[in-house]
């Protein structure tokens, strides 16, 4: 945080034991430091869950953010829809 203006890192939490399997949670942190003054931004979000069996096999489950995906999809659809409408209208005006 002190040296670089932007830093992304993945953090792993303490394991949770379920019978023989160890379950780890992982999060991704984006740290942005202001170039002037003091302060900044920290964005921390869950990314995945890692299950490790005693024989060494690891299974990674990603944590989906359905709300963010839906909002971003709507944003992209609205932009694409508006661009298509603009193109369609320009073609009609030319003909």
């Amino acid at each position, binding site marked *: *945080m002190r040296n670089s203006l932007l830093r992304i890192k993945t*953090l*792993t*939490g*303490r394991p*949770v034991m*379920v*019978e023989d399997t160890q*379950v780890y*949670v*992982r*999060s991704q*942190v984006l*740290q942005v430091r*202001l170039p002037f*003054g*003091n*302060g*900044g*931004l*920290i*964005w*921390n*979000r*869950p990314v995945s*869950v890692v*299950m490790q069996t005693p024989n060494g096999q690891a299974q990674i*489950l*990603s*944590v*989906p*953010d*359905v*709300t963010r995906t*839906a*909002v971003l999809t*709507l*944003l992209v*659809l*609205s932009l694409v*829809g*508006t661009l298509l*409408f*603009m193109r369609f*209208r*320009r073609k009609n*005006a*030319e003909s």
Partner: protein
Amino acid sequence: MANFSTPSQKLQDNKLLDPNLALETVQTTMDKFLSAANVEAVYGPPVSQGETIIIPSAEVLSIAGFGLGSGSGSQGSADPEKTGSGGGGGGGGRVLARPVAAIVISPTGVRIEPIVDVTKIVLAVFTTLGFMVGMITRMKRIKHPKLNG
């Protein structure tokens, strides 16, 4: 002029002027701000329900900023009684959190149950529709010149 300040007010005033206290406040604020960069900030403590363990998870956004300044001046004379100095500082910040998913660990396996914020999605739908209707209405008003050669 009579001095109406009580001893407790004087003590409070002295506390406010104490630079160590100001630094301590800044340090505490920065510590709280930096605590958002931990795994514990995103994943809650596991909750056991019978043989099932549930770990709640959330997205955390923390924004903070502060500044300190000081200065001194004199009225053009070297008289130490006519010189002065002062300092000040200020800052602010905000922490936003939103639930993302719940991790359900049961003897049958681990599954992730997403938490859907319907209000946010409905608001996004209305905002998108408003944007599209606005853009289309504006475009319809603009008359394109016909290119007849």
